[in-house]
């Protein structure tokens, strides 16, 4: 009997604990689910509002439940415009305070709005997000360093030149001193050969450098803002022409105005590499009206005519063909020589869209030759692309 009693009691205990756990779990998970739902719902609000991060388009929502009554809030969130039109004093005041930008109606139920409000009330900033951002930034820095080394050949080359020239000078001086003073090596041919080789090496370097006079390959100046094409064009996949808008219509590809930066940076205020320091320079320029003095990297001499529209719009070239893999550069480097040989080589090999572009209809002779099979293709050179006066006039 006692045994049964104990058993019963134990059973009741078990039953009770199971039900409580179950109840607890349902409440807890339910709460969690609702919180998750509220978080998703707030994604819509986040377009215009922040919690504790200041005014965006609409007011900061921190402590919003304290500022207004719940019933009023529910009504306002569901359809603010209706309230403004009905002449609700607080609603009209808010509408006017926020530049008369209407808040679109939301089809949330009363219950949903309540959970949304409690989400806003209990909102704490997630430190986890920052942590990931930090490690993200670290990985970016590491990548940045990797990139720096990958673009090092410029520096390496000059260092090689420097040591080569030093070695050559030393060799010449040594052989000269041996020739006239020490006289350790009997055969004068050795001295002469060493000196000739050294002069040959130095002469070679001089010739290469003279050929590069007036060219700026590997020119990579530091810009007033550490703008990274790698982040914008590579990581964020923004089209080149989004910012360089006139590449299709103008001689110049165009440098974006500060207002254009603000298309994204009105909201994006902190970068992954430099935080807020570099982006703050845009706001500074916008406020002061002083233009940002970007440094032009790709220059051709004034006696060369180059037109972006002709190459981008008509020739349908990819930007990367001349500018290199810009989407992998943190700081822009001139990869091509932009020399005349480089231009001509491309004009000799690049095919023209001869049959599809009506502009070339007038070249009747070439069309005839193409049709009879005398020519298999038309390259830029065939239509006068390599005539002197095409680029020099």
């Amino acid at each position, binding site marked *: 009997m006692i045994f049964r009693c104990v058993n019963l009691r134990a059973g009741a205990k078990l039953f009770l604990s199971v039900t409580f756990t179950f109840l607890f779990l349902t409440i807890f998970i339910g709460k969690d689910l609702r919180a998750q739902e509220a978080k998703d719902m707030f994604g819509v609000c986040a377009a215009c509002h922040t919690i504790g991060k200041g005014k965006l388009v609409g007011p900061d929502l921190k402590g919003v439940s304290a500022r207004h009554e719940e019933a009023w809030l529910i009504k306002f969130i569901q359809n603010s415009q209706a309230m403004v039109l009905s002449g609700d004093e607080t609603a009209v005041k808010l509408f006017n305070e926020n530049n008369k930008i209407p808040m679109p109606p939301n089809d949330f139920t009363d219950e949903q709005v309540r959970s949304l409000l409690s989400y806003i009330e209990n909102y704490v900033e997630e430190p986890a997000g920052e942590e990931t951002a930090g490690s993200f930034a670290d990985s970016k820095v590491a990548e940045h360093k990797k990139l720096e080394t990958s673009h090092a050949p410029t520096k390496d080359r000059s260092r090689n030149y420097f040591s080569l020239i030093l070695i050559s000078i030393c060799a010449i001086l040594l052989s000269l001193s041996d020739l006239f003073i020490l006289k350790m090596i009997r055969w004068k041919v050795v001295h002469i050969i060493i000196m000739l080789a050294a002069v040959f090496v*130095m002469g070679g370097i001089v010739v290469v450098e003279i050929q590069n006079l007036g060219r700026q390959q590997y020119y990579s100046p530091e810009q007033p803002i550490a703008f990274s094409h790698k982040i914008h064009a590579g990581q964020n996949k923004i089209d080149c022409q989004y910012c360089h808008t006139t590449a299709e219509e103008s001689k110049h590809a165009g440098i974006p105005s500060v207002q254009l930066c603000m298309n994204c940076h009105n909201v994006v205020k902190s970068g992954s590499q430099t935080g807020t320091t570099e982006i703050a320079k845009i706001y500074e320029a916008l406020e002061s009206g002083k233009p940002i003095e970007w440094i032009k990297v790709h220059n051709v001499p004034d006696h060369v005519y180059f037109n972006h529209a002709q190459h981008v719009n008509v020739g349908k070239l990819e930007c990367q063909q001349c500018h290199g893999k810009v989407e992998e550069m943190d700081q822009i480097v001139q990869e091509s020589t932009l020399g005349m040989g480089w231009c001509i080589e491309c004009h000799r090999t690049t095919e023209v869209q001869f049959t599809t572009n009506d502009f070339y209809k007038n070249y009747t002779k070439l069309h005839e030759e193409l049709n009879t099979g005398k020519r298999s293709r038309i390259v830029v050179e065939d239509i006068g692309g390599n005539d002197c006066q095409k680029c020099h006039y």
Partner: protein
Amino acid sequence: METRKRYSLILLGALAIGMLGLSSCNHDPNHPGWAYMPDMYYSEPSNAYSENVVFRDSMSNQLPVQGTIPRGYMPFPYKQKSYDDQILAGVELENPIINNDKNLERGKKQYEIYCSNCHGLSGDGKGYLFTSGLFPAKPTSLIGDVVQNKPDGEIFHIITVGSLSGLMGAHGSQIQPDDRWKIINYLRTLLAKK
């Protein structure tokens, strides 16, 4: 005496060549390098975007004189960020672009450059900048009723001066008026594709 003179001459020559070589290998990435006899190398007239001593704001690029209208350019008479003007533009502006394949293709191309970053390739508002979490605000779905029910002129107003909320910036300086209409024509086809 004779040998010493010859010795010093040869040494001088070697040093001169060495110095010439050394001076030419200054590869400072901040320096554009040297030009040899730079005739017609640097431009005498002001280049685009250059500094200019003539103008008070020291910029070569100047805005058109106030009150003048460039040829082939239609002024945009509507106010920015004004709900009333946006509605008015919707009533008054008419889409002048014929809906043919060529124009749609152009619209598609322009849409992919200027709009798809945020609004997504299919127009569902899930562009890469939003889905990757880089841009915190959710872009409007362009295939939703809100946008599709707007008249062309209203969308044109939004593209030109930006959205009322200010989250979408003005794209009038980036997209030519004709291209804006072509983008709108392309938008209308997105709904059918869905």
